């Protein structure tokens, strides 16, 4: 899997890495049961700290997209695709709201209205 990160970007590196994995899951390039790259190999290829990669993987686990198992590695969960698309849409919504200056409460209220 291809990764691109830019240390000059305002997003922290671990968010950039998590976003790319999430995007791959959302688009189906990574499916249920697929294994994410070993953190050490990815960290080496991108010249970042291994804990940066592990933090990205930890976030993806907290989002319910992957399982982290000792020895077996990090594996994409069942039905992670739909979930990844919703989370991606939410991050886009949040970024867009920030950009146009919408208040947090306003966005939350909006979400409750459309649900």
């Amino acid at each position, binding site marked *: *899997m*291809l*990764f*691109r*990160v*830019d*240390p*000059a970007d305002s997003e922290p590196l671990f968010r950039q890495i998590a976003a790319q994995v999430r995007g791959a899951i959302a688009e189906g390039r990574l499916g249920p049961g697929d294994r994410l*790259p*070993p953190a050490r*190999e*990815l960290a*080496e*290829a*991108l*010249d*970042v700290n291994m804990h940066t990669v592990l933090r990205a993987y930890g976030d993806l686990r907290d989002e319910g997209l992957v399982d982290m198992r000792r020895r077996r590695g990090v594996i994409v969960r069942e039905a992670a695709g739909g979930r990844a698309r919703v989370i991606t849409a939410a991050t886009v919504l949040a970024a867009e709201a920030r950009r146009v200056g919408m208040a947090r409460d306003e966005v939350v209220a909006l979400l409750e209205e459309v649900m």
Partner: protein
Amino acid sequence: MDRTRSTLQDVAVGLLLPAAIVLAATLPWLVAWSDLPDPVATHWDLAGDPDGHASLVLALALVAVPAIAAALVLAAVAAHTRRGRRDGVVPAGPALVGALAAGLGALFAVLSLGVVVANAGATSWQDAELPLAWALASVVALIAAGWGAAVALGPIRLGAPAAPDAPGSHAADLALRPGERAGWVGTGHARWPLATAAALAVAAIVAAVVTALFVAAVCALAGLLVLLVGAVHVSAGVQGVRVSSPVGWPRVTLPLDQIESARAIELRPMDWGGWGYRGSLHLAGRAAWVVRRGEGLELRLTDSRAFAVTVDGAADAAAVVNALLARSHQPS
């Protein structure tokens, strides 16, 4: 490579080694001729007792003539590649023939010496005992002389075999912003590693029950080996291209400064010598890590060398390598 060393190598491989082979294959016969029985023992069983014989003249012809012929071929090839090396190109074919001739020449020279040593002083061929160590010595001589000649005649550069681009591997260029980093991590899997390993495990159990434990051990070991080489991990990034087994060893690292270009190919195992880790970057200038046929990453390396590994998504890997190479070539 500096000139003196290369001349020394030429003398060693083109004159000294052939001369040593010819002398070792003929001189002992001349010295011991009167002490040899006729016929002489020419074949031994594993215990070192003779079980085959031939007339003196035939025995001499069987071991000395091939050794002399091999020595002549080696000398001719050495003279030939010396001319080639002055032009900066060492032809791979002749160099391989030379290495083969050196190995076979050494093998027959040691065998010839063994026949004389075993038969000298024996009253008849049945009394000529040959220790098993001679067989081992002949194999060692074969490998040492062949290896040495390959190094001295080289560097042998087989280069990458012609291969079509991998299907659908549109050469999408990766344009990196200044400061942006790109990395790629992927794997290649054999088609049936689990099935093969399982079959070998069953064979091991059957062998343990009905035949020998030795056969069972071989089957079990082969099964483990299939699991070990059934998949390959590949990563590409600032460290270059790194290839390893799933457990991390063995491992090959090709730093970016050794890579000239990368592309995704449709890899045919037989082009690279078969499955597993084939070839040698050091000796042959070509190596490949092959677990299946199909999509693979081909790297053209400095010094006319080439490396390939079977891996899924090779086009992305090649794009990362080429993007990083393009950046490293830019004046900073």
